[in-house]
């Protein structure tokens, strides 16, 4: 595709002045749009941004290192609970609590990476699934973490600023997201990233070339857990209330789906996958409001199905989208992008 002529070109973030202009445009859009839209859309943007962070982290593990994890909701939960308890019970400021909790999550990620050294495929998925379930059960049992009643997240105080509206939180969040994504992108371009890719493609060959599988696999788990932890910590403030039930298996599956649907091994893919699936998740409940389709669905519901279950259409649409994307484009949304790009580039052939 785009040929890189030397190493420095490969790692460069901004490839040309025009690209720089687009990038600046993107940044200004991201920072300016909250001034023009409803608060509700800012909430949606916050929710999406958090999922983007987690998806990017999971992509590192699944897309670039080739492991499977069905337990990322566990790291997410550790991040959320860790941040809230460090802030509320131990009095640490937000900027210390958040990385602190994420580091704890990374520690657990490292622990999970150890059995992962020997497992693969469905075996690894069960091990990670078990981990995810265990974490929520254990947290729910401990009264210090609010037990089953859950915890309320306190307001964030950073120096003179108190952040308690969605808009203010958005600015904090988007800055963090951009920073984390840039870090991830750079990580992938370094030797660490290339080691991950080597492990995914041919781990025995990688070992013979001197790449320390143990170190890099566990590192992949730890970094992706770190991202999930940060996402979790931020989520606690978007929702303002956390309880163990929220961090269910369904959430882990959603994360995995975001990465796979977006495109494995591509950061843009993870971002778009997360954006699309979150947006669908929040918006599909309004499916009955679509002018013609909604009425037709209701009519169908009354005659053949039960009207009481009509909202289940969301699941059907969601599942169908996942299936269709995977069937027609195994590379996910990124693959769709590549195909359109290639089509336009090589038009009219």
């Amino acid at each position, binding site marked *: 595709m785009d040929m890189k002529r030397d190493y420095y070109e490969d790692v460069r973030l901004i490839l040309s002045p025009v690209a720089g202009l687009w990038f600046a445009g993107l940044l200004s859009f991201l920072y300016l749009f909250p001034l023009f839209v409803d608060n509700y859309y800012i909430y949606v943007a916050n929710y999406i941004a958090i999922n983007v962070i987690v998806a990017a982290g999971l992509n590192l593990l*699944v897309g670039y290192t080739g492991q*499977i994890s069905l337990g990322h909701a566990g790291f997410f939960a550790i991040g959320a609970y860790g941040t809230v308890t460090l802030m509320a019970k131990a009095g640490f400021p937000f900027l210390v609590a958040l990385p602190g909790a994420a580091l704890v999550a990374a520690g657990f990620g490292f622990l999970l990476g150890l*059995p992962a050294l*020997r*497992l*693969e*495929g*469905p*075996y690894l*998925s*069960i*091990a990670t*699934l*078990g*981990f995810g*379930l*265990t974490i929520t*059960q*254990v947290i729910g*049992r401990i009264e210090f973490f609010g037990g089953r009643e859950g915890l309320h997240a306190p307001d964030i105080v950073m120096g003179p600023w108190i952040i308690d509206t969605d808009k203010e939180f958005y600015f904090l969040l988007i800055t963090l997201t951009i920073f984390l994504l840039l870090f991830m992108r750079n990580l992938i371009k370094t030797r660490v990233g290339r080691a991950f890719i080597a492990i995914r493609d041919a781990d*025995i*060959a990688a070992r013979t070339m001197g790449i320390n599988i143990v170190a890099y696999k566990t590192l992949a788990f730890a970094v992706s857990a770190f991202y999930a932890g940060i996402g979790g910590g931020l989520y606690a403030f978007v929702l303002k209330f956390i309880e163990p039930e929220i961090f269910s*298996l369904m959430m882990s*599956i959603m994360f*995995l*789906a975001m990465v*796979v*649907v977006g495109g*494995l091994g591509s950061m843009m893919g993870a971002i778009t996958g997360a954006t699309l699936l979150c947006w669908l998740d929040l918006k599909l409940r309004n499916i009955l409001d679509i002018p013609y389709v909604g009425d037709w669905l209701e009519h169908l*519901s009354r005659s*053949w*199905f*039960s009207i*009481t*279950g*009509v909202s*289940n*259409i*969301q*699941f*059907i649409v*969601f*599942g*169908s*989208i*996942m*299936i269709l994307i*995977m*069937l027609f484009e*195994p590379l996910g949304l990124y693959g769709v992008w590549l195909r359109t790009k290639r089509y336009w580039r090589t038009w009219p052939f």
Partner: protein
Amino acid sequence: MVDLIQMIVSGFAVGSSYALMGLAMVIIYKTSEVPNFAQGEMALAASFFAMMLLTSFNIPLLPAFFMTFVFAAALGCFLEFAVLRRAKNPNVLGMIVITIGLEMVLVGLVSWKFGAEQKSMPFPIGPYDSFIIKGIFISKLDVLTLVSALLLMGGLYFFSRYSRLGLAMKATQQNSVAARIVGIRTHGIMMMTWAISSVVGAAAGLLISPVIMNPYMMWDPMLKGFAAAVMGGMTSLPGAVIAAYMLGIIENLFGGYISIEFKSVVAFAIIVLVLCFKPSGLFAKHYVKKV
């Protein structure tokens, strides 16, 4: 002492339903290396279909069950044909996502059609009638599940080992191109595999439905069945069943003596431990990757 035996017996009972789900998942994995997350919902669709036949159309019991199995087989064939076959370059993750998508579609359809309230299934054996032997009780339904699980396991094992079709299934799994060259209709084999697995799942669903019947009833048995299959080795039929029983018994013993709350957690912890020592499960042959 009585309590201990009771717990072991109950563990057997609960292990049987896990065993049936585990069997269903292993059958599919053996032939097509797809961990089928939609297994539970396929069983769910079949059970609700049975309920619909029994209550809305008032069809007598045996014909209704027969029709349900036919429906389950047809559903399995249809899903394989329409969805799984169309996947190009399937890698494990892609298949997982596709089966999860299928699972969502199925559960959405069942919920939509039948509503979300608890229903009751007119089953000939009440869920709570039981035999009490010297203070140890086991319900009739559990005995039926146990018997079915063992029979199905035995039947499938001998089928896959000694019949032509079973041999063809093995060949398809090992090298589908070579199998096709030798003349095996791999597409037909795959459809058959899904059909068999769906029927086994339907049996599991029907046996669970007298106790609990709502669109989310198969979620937990499927997870436990999957976990059991993994622990036993995803390519070994007897392995899945034995592991399922072990899982049930360990769960019950732990719940009885230590803590009911952490029961499921311990089950998964044990599985992870087992996998640490035997990465391909207890009873499967560990295929060492050749470079």
